[in-house]
């Protein structure tokens, strides 16, 4: 029973971090209908921004966080304005290829700017684990979860109550209607890319703080893909629920099945659950069902 509780708590903690990175996918898809395959690299670049601010410039953690948000927003803005805007109206496959190309470019840039050496931050959180009864949660995981959840809640509030959030929701709902109501749809695209980049970058800082950073860190972005598909590509609530489901499933399956089969179940289990859920709900748990009438 202790083991199950331990696995559940850790699963929830890691699921929260997954949810934040998944938000990076969802925010962009929701507003622009583009699946950004460079989300993992946005995450990696965010971690390097943090490294630059904290280690190279020597700023304290909170200003470093703020700097990451500003720089990531600018990166999102630049990518949208300089690249994606010119792809409007192009076939989906071309846009997908552009984001895949972008991921390679960002990885190459990271190698050039920060080198290929492994880097790590100074400790951000107290070293001591969090102990709840018999359950132990590692410090980095617990604090990572706290930061991720605060960020997710802030994003949710922004969407619900801020003017820009309402405008983004309107754009996502019906671009033509939003346009006719005076919303600058193009600006909403830029805002979506900037917010998506911020979410991914903060996820990158949390992951980087757990294991260190390298230009290949973005590979974790693909691991988040089941989370996004599971929750529904265009649903913030879906990203959060999907994150928790994947975190729980991989932990429980890993904890109970890995010892019997020699490992590997932990990484496989989320995909099995993904397939099962998609068989029942092809648009994900909270995804918008597109109906096209011919």
């Amino acid at each position, binding site marked *: 029973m202790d083991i199950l509780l331990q696995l559940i708590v*850790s699963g929830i903690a890691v699921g929260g971090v997954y949810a934040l990175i998944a938000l990076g996918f969802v925010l962009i898809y929701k507003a622009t209908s583009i699946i950004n395959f460079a989300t993992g690299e946005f995450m990696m670049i965010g971690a390097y921004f943090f490294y630059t601010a904290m280690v190279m410039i020597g700023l304290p953690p909170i200003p470093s966080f703020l700097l990451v948000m500003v720089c990531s927003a600018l990166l999102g803005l630049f990518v949208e304005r300089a690249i994606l805007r010119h792809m409007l109206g192009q076939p989906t496959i071309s846009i997908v290829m552009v984001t895949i190309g972008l991921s390679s470019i960002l990885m190459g840039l990271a190698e050039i700017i920060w080198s290929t050496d492994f880097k790590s931050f100074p400790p951000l959180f107290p070293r001591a684990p969090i102990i709840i009864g018999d359950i132990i949660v590692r410090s980095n995981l617990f604090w990572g979860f706290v930061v991720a959840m605060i960020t997710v809640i802030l994003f949710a509030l922004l969407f619900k109550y801020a003017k820009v959030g309402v405008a983004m929701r309107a754009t996502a709902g019906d671009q033509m209607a939003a346009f006719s109501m005076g919303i600058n749809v193009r600006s909403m695209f830029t805002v979506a890319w900037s917010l998506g980049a911020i979410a991914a970058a903060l996820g990158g800082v949390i992951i980087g703080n757990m294991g260190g950073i390298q230009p290949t860190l973005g590979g974790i972005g693909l691991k988040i893909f089941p989370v996004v598909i599971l929750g529904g590509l265009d649903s913030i609530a879906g990203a959060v629920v999907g994150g928790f489901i994947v975190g729980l499933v*991989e*932990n429980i399956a890993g904890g109970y099945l890995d010892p019997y089969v020699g490992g590997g179940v932990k990484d496989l289990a989320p995909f099995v659950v993904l397939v099962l859920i998609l068989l029942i709900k092809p648009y994900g748990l909270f995804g918008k069902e597109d109906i096209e009438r011919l």
Partner: protein
Amino acid sequence: MKSLRVTLGLLLTLCLVLGAGMALAADTIKITAQQPLTGRFAFAGKHIHQGLADSIAYANEQGGVDGQKFEYIYEDTGYDLKRAVASFKKMVAKYSPVMNYGESTGEGKALAPEINSRYHLVYGSTSFSQELADRAKNPYFFVSGPTYAQQFGILLKYIAAHPKTKGQAPTVAFFHSDTEFGRDPVPYAREMAKKLGVKVVAEEVTAVGAVDITSQLLDLKRHNPDYCIFQGYVVPPIPAVIRGAKDFGLKTTFMGTFWTMSKMLLDKLGADGDGYMGVMPYAYWYHTDVPMIKIIQDFNKRHHPDVKYRPNSYMQGWFTGMVYVKLAKMCKAKGLPITGPNLKNMIPQVKDWDTQGFAGIVSFKHSNATAVGKVYIGKGGKFMPASDWIYLDK
């Protein structure tokens, strides 16, 4: 007319200079290399490349092989197998090398049939693969140190000699990545452990760069091993496992093989690195009592005055260069021309080679790998010897 004569004169001079240059180049012993200078292995590739280049340059400074110099020609492959294979074929066609350095286990395995049957050149690489060191299958290949399996063997030998509780068989867990690199030594290690009386109580498997390792930690806690050996990682998730194990109250001693014995990992571990152990085939940069390290430091002082540290991947490159030079010198000493087949025949004849403290006393005995390493322990951010050289085939 005068200008025509001047032009012809200049052309003739140019031809003579180029001709002399080509003649000189033809006289060199060519070593080609496909180096992963960019891409996900570049963190090590650039140091391996520098170590190999420096080792060969040092050999040339020492007069080469009876005055015949080595020529090192390399290309970046971005750690991309297709690029590496294409680069190898292009370089072989262009330079006709007698030795080559490969970027990965993958490249070695992909090229092995053609190297053995067609290209006939001696092949060293970044790899510590058991398969590539198999002399019967791949006589042209050598591994610059013990294979991963042999590294596990060395660690298990150390563990068998250092039980945590006297009179009780030591227990060990293997913690490896779900990759070919991670799985490579495990079957051998299981057998070796049985032979040495070490009990394997758990095998944990994760993806490289796994974010959460709680389930593996809980399994480790269930089995509470005396030792745990990592394989198939570079840094993550090792710091998380070691810290997590401490949080869970485990007294396990964690160990690693070549790639997990780096300064990068110790830097990331900080104070938790004290007591982390593992096997390395070479001496470290700061072991200045080792004669070969003194030579390396002196070479770097003269050629790279800004360099303050060279990692273990640099040492791998340097040692591979030493092997190339050794094989060429052996050919020359026997009066044989320096060709791929002759160099290949020298590999099994390397016996009791004193590497001046750098990699023990090296013999390529039963396989084309050195089967020797030293166990080191992390202390204050450095790896210090915890054992003497441990020979698996003695």
